[in-house]
């Protein structure tokens, strides 16, 4: 057994985890400093083990450690992790994060991670949220793990407490990347396409997102910005476009999936969606000046959107011609602005 593991085995809970985190930080920062890592020889192996036993407490008490933390202890632990990440140098922050939460997503790890993010959100710890955002990006914003995390946050901040949350409101200023990826995941959780098994997004959430996007037209491209260092990116705009079009339709046609919406909530939602549509166009305008030159949409997306629109119209026997015209115009406006801002490439055949 390595020195560190032996040392930690004598310590009781808060202290053992604190020292474990310290050890992790030293491992990562010193590795960073020398920029050498010899597999099998360096401390990383121990790091994984230390993390496994004294942060995630996964050993099941194999070495006489604590089997399971109670809620208070867990909160203590989360606080320690959060502080550790926040105080770690920026270059090694994500590496520490990966050692703790990377690898196979076992439920206990995901559970702890979700709680950490929720806590970081309520305390506005930007560094932790930035790590979470990168993690989301690596997993893909539409992946189940990320959607689960996002769903949990929506529950915590939009459904459990419907009052306006100040911390949630200013989320973009705490971590823009996290906000961006969160929105992407949310559009995946709530497609707002009239599917009976999927609820429409909560009104509060819709309001938050619309306000975020309206006040910062570059917010949606935080993930795109990272294209130089990240393999992939995600952009919430496709999902939001769908909301603007299909959401409006769902709200106007007494669709079963929105049956729990009151009339005032419906008209409120419709108003917000108009603002969101404008926000999307504004964002697209801003995108051009950012010169990121990535395609954000494909024409087939718009084609399938239009098809879904027509399906719902037929299914619901939607009568309001003016609204339908308006939605078609919206699609048209979005395509026009998207083409102009080079976020949508079209071949000559379509034109």
């Amino acid at each position, binding site marked *: 057994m390595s020195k560190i593991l032996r040392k930690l085995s004598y310590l009781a809970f808060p202290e053992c985890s604190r020292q474990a985190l310290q050890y992790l930080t030293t491992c990562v920062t010193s590795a960073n400093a020398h920029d050498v890592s010899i597999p099998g020889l360096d401390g990383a192996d121990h790091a994984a083990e230390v993390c496994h036993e004294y942060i995630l407490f996964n050993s099941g008490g194999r070495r006489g450690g604590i089997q399971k933390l109670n809620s208070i202890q867990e909160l203590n632990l989360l606080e320690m992790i959060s502080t550790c990440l926040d105080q770690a140098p920026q270059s090694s922050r994500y590496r520490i994060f990966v050692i703790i939460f990377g690898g196979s997503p076992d439920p206990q790890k995901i559970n702890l991670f979700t709680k950490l993010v929720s806590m970081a959100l309520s305390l506005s710890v930007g560094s932790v949220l930035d790590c979470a955002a990168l993690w989301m990006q690596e997993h893909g914003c539409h992946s189940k793990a990320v959607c689960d995390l996002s769903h949990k946050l929506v529950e915590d901040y939009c459904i459990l407490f419907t009052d306006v949350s100040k911390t949630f409101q200013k989320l973009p200023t705490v971590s823009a990347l996290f906000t961006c990826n969160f929105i992407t995941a949310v559009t995946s959780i709530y497609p707002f396409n009239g599917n009976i098994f999927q609820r429409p997004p909560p009104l509060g959430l819709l309001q938050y997102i619309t306000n975020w996007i309206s006040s910062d037209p570059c917010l949606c491209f935080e993930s795109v910005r990272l294209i130089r260092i990240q393999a992939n990116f995600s952009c919430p705009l496709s999902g939001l476009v769908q909301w603007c079009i299909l959401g409006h339709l769902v709200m106007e046609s007494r669709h079963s999936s929105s049956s729990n919406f009151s009339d005032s909530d419906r008209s409120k939602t419709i108003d917000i969606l*108009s*603002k969101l549509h404008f926000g999307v*166009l*504004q964002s697209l*305008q801003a995108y051009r000046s950012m010169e990121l030159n990535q395609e954000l949409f494909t024409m087939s997306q718009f084609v399938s959107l239009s098809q879904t629109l027509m399906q719902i119209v037929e299914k619901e026997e939607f009568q309001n011609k003016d609204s339908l015209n308006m939605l078609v*115009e919206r699609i*048209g406006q979005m395509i*026009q*602005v998207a083409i102009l*801002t080079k976020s949508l490439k079209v071949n000559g055949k379509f034109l």
Partner: protein
Amino acid sequence: MAAVMKQSTGCSDEEWLVLRARSCMKTDQYAAKAWMITARSLFPRNFTIQFEAYTLEKVGKNVKEAAKLLEEMFMVFSNEDRLWEEIHQILEILQTEAMSDGQNNFLTEIFAEVSTHVQCQMLLTVAEKISNTLEQCRLLLLAMRKFPNLVGEHGLKLLETLHAAEMESNVQHPINCYRKLLVYDVLPLVLQRQKAGEIPPSKLYHWLKMAIDFYISYVTHPPSGHSSTVQGEMLSPTKSSKRQIPIPGLFERECQVTDPWGNLLKTFLLIGQHLGWEPQQELFSPQRETNFKQLFTLYNRSKQAGKDVNLHQILYTAVILFLHCLFAYVSAVDPESFIGTNSNHLPLVMVEGFKQESASESSPSKKLKTQTDTSPKLLATSSVPDSQHIISSFSTAFKCYELLHSSTELQREFMSLCEMWHMETWTWMGHFQTDMLIYQGAFMDAIAHLQNFSTANKESMKVRSSLQMACCFFSLHKYMKACELVLNVIKEVSVQDAATQMTNRSQVDKSHIDPSRRSLLLTVCSQTEILPYCVELLIACYKTKLNSAKSDDLALGHLIILLQYDWPKFQHVLSDVVQKIQKQGSFIYNLFFNYVINVDILEEVTFLKSQEGGKINLDILCISTKAIAQQRAVTRGVNKGVKEDFKVAMEKQVSRCEENIDKLIMKFLCEERQSLLKALS
């Protein structure tokens, strides 16, 4: 996409898009804005659409967005007239606000949101486009106020433009729109921003002259109705006291010149700094003597150096100090002379004072010759408000005036300034000139000046000028002329002050004065203040008759009546009179019982009749004893009857002793005019 959206409405694509946006505006402003974004993406170089988008944001009161669009339009569509109209409108409102600190207009909020660089460009470009010089100058001024960095580039140019515009417009009066902007608004900015030594001195002198001319004309502007036409608003009681002179060509808000003296001093100090002087910061402080002393030190030093190095500094310091003192003095003397000055007291008058000694063997003019080295002492009655300041203002103005005439160089420079400012037209200076001549003892000149000046004089200043002339004639021993003028004054004030009788007669503190020194008296032109002086002057006139060998009972009688005034102030004169009567042995004066009610005097006169008194033959009953004698037609017992009459008359007079002596004297002076003059002929 344009093809998709275009409908067969018969209008162009752009128009259709604009219409779409407008139609959405009422129900859903976001939809309208979405349309505008689409329209702008379709027609990025279309002004109509861009302007519509701007209008939309303006209507929606979105300051930031509107500002952004305005800025964009300014960059891209610099040739569009509608854009210029809009910017011009914004700038006009901006100017209005700069003047009045009212609530912010929405348009100016938009302007404030535009980036500083573009703001600056907008102002300059609009200013460039305007053909009206005045408008152009206003905008440039606004630009320089907002962006002081522009002063370096545009300040001097703007001053030149304004100067040229004033010359071109051919206005004679210094209070004109160009001058006001130049002197009051632009000049301080330029002087503050420009570094010393960057501006040629000739220009600085020129501006200083313009500034002095402007501010002096401004503060000495006569009240409306006097020279300018009476306007309805000026007549309203709320506005009458406000110092606001309408300047043709400027808006009402622009005409405001706050603290003209303070601004003149500021300009003087700034220009002084540019010229490398060490200007006197406290030049307008109430410590006039100190200020003059500093100036005089500078003058002496430069005289010793024997060069003209400080000539201009001395000249301008003296001129400005002179004008400030002059203004303070004249506005105290003639409170109604200038618009906006405090006119709640009567005019003041400066007259020759009397010697304290009872005998006046030598005339004042003779004394003056022996006393040329010491200047006369100025005194004020206690009714004169803030008298020390008024007196020091006068004497400092006088000293400055002397200084300005003390060397040929200074005199020449000063004369050229006078000529440039048309000082001969400054009628308000007349009061000072009169007082200065009296102060110098040049009574002939003073009379000539008063006579010249009186035609232009206002009703309220008549008393003042008559009284001054009287004192001048008296000093020149022209007693009858002096008396005539005094009687005129008395007549004038008896009417004027009939309603407002003051209770207490104010006093002059003469305790510290060398009695042999010449003194001048400053007092208020009211009956209560002037009457003592008039009486004293008349007493002095009639007293001269005491010394003449021939008997003159009329003069003696008038003197006795006058002596009652302010009894026992002139008690010492009475003994001279009594002696004279005793010497004569008889005294005939029929007005005696009409006007003498003073018990002491009655007693003294009764005593004259007695054995001890010299058994003087007194014929002082209203109807002469001779006449009574003729009436009775008997010679015996005549005297007895007379004796009885005399006794009764005396007793009657004693019973009148409580009567108001001031009124009695006034009555005497008004009703016995002929007799009073006759006694002095």
